[in-house]
């Protein structure tokens, strides 16, 4: 049996009177791609935000690498090894592509303010390594020729890819992608699928939120389905495809069963 990397246990998330997540449990195994799907407003992004520490859950626990993530600040969670992208792109617009990635790489840098001022050997070395690593990642996602272009001036598709590179820069164990294919045409989606598979094959674990069933079905190892803040199904892609609850949720049939 494969090893569990992240497990979300009985997480409930309420905003005022609205319950965005209702007693959700799911887990991610090392080295797999877990697809998280569901209709609009099902709580997918909220789930993401709980995992990455943007929200503290009302109740329940999140365990990563056998340690609880609750109470950790967002940047500490990132340093533990969870990185993410955003549904609506949130790059650092005025910084160049390579600098964007370097911010991610810097997450593990030990250079202090004093070290940077004095230009001690370690900080110089880290600076060079950070730049090299950033270029490596840009090559990996295929936009290294745009390294010096300000993020805001990149074409849309490259911006999405750059977000992935920036997240990979933090050297995560778990990469969370929030609708990475949004706004892509079929050809671009195909390229993205290949990229995500390539990322998995490099040894990263991927949590993928996606709207497009085709994408999810094709590349996910397992799939979890959320609807109205509850998990209604979890399993292998073909199991999900045939699951009546899932079909009902997607077709908009009111379901009280689950």
């Amino acid at each position, binding site marked *: 049996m494969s090893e569990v990397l992240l497990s979300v246990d009985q997480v409930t998330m309420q905003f005022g009177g609205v319950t965005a997540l209702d007693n959700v449990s799911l887990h991610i195994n090392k080295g797999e791609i877990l697809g998280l799907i569901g209709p609009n407003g099902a709580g997918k992004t909220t789930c993401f*935000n709980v995992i*990455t520490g*943007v929200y503290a859950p009302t109740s329940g626990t999140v365990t990563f690498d056998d340690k609880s993530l609750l109470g950790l*600040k*967002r*940047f500490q969670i*990132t*340093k533990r090894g969870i*990185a*993410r992208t*955003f549904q609506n792109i*949130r*790059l*650092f*617009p*005025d*910084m*160049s592509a390579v*600098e964007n990635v*370097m*911010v*991610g790489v*810097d*997450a*593990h*840098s030990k*250079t202090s*303010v004093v070290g*940077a*001022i004095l*230009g001690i050997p370690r*900080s110089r070395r*880290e*600076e060079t390594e*950070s730049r090299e690593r950033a270029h490596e990642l840009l090559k990996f996602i295929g936009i290294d020729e745009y390294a010096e272009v*300000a993020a*805001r*001036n990149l074409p849309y598709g490259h911006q999405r890819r750059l977000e992935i590179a*920036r*997240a990979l*820069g*933090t050297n995560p164990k778990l990469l969370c992608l929030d609708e990475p294919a949004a706004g892509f045409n079929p050809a671009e989606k195909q390229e993205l699928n290949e990229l995500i598979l390539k990322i998995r094959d490099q040894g990263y674990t991927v949590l993928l939120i996606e709207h497009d069933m085709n994408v999810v079905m094709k590349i996910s190892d397992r799939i979890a389905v959320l609807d109205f803040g509850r998990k209604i199904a979890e399993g292998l892609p073909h199991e999900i495809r045939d699951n009546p609850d899932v079909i009902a949720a997607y077709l908009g049939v009111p379901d009280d069963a689950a």
Partner: protein
Amino acid sequence: MSLTESFRQRTTPQLQLGNRFRALPRSAKWSLSALLIAALYLTPYWPDVPVLGWIINTPGTSFENVLTDQIMMFILVALGLNVVVGFAGLLDLGYVGFYAVGAYTTAVVTSGQFTLPWIAALPLSVIMAMIAGVILGTPTLRLRGDYLAIVTLGFGEIIRITANNSNWLGGPRGISKIARPPSIGPLQFGVLNAKPYWYLGFTVILIVIFVLTRLENSRVGRAWAAVREDEDAAELMGVDTFKFKLWAFAIGAAIGGLAGSLYASKVGFINPDNFQLQLSILFLAAVVLGGTGSMYGVIMGGFLVAWIPERFRGFSTRRYFVFGVVLVLVMVFRPQGIIPRRGAAAGIAKKGESDV
């Protein structure tokens, strides 16, 4: 989106100049920089140069004194405030408070009961200002942008009013007989000749530029820029945003304190009126006018804000009116400042806070 138009990268003459400079061979770069620095060290003599002298000289006041009491301070302060506002994107409207802390520390420890030598008072002032920055920053840096602005504004006022109402700080009369830097050989730090203060001050400015360039081009500078551009995203990319904001605050405060200390030891006498709230506003104007986030821009801004009102003294009381109108005109026609930050796109306001 109606923003597409502003996606066009704007190339300004300054940028082209900068790129051309960067393209030069190393030796040429060094000799050009050395020439420039030498010319700048000789600024007190500029009024004697034909044409340039006519442009730069300040009628009715000694240019030397304007240079050391105003221009030098404004450049230093603009560099310091730029760390906070330009690099880290934190709006600080009470920067005069740190300037005052630096000035008062130097004043208190070198006159009256304590008579520390100047050389000890200077670092002490910097440290005190830095501590003030940390004390103010720790509770307030969790606040969002505009709240921070008003809280810092309050801080600036609190410092001034405290000085005004505290006997040990001289009250409204202020403190006099502040120690001057020790004279070394031909460098006589007295009342009559202001030139040595410029040599000292310009050296300090060069050191500050050196330090800030190191920071800007390191992980620290990148973290600041990330916080400025999108604080939430920065934190989710592993940037300890609070720590870096506090550092920006502390470093900015330290430079403000440094400027205040130099000012106090130059003029030899300070009182609370030297640290009016309006001064904070002028400091900020220097930064934005020059080009927020651009080091050479804010130096230019600091120079202009200090120099214009003195240069146009012929305008007498109208000069602040002129200055106000000039601020509006520059912002309308050159909103990124005179020398914009590299990479700064032409426009697009910083995005408001939104859900992640």
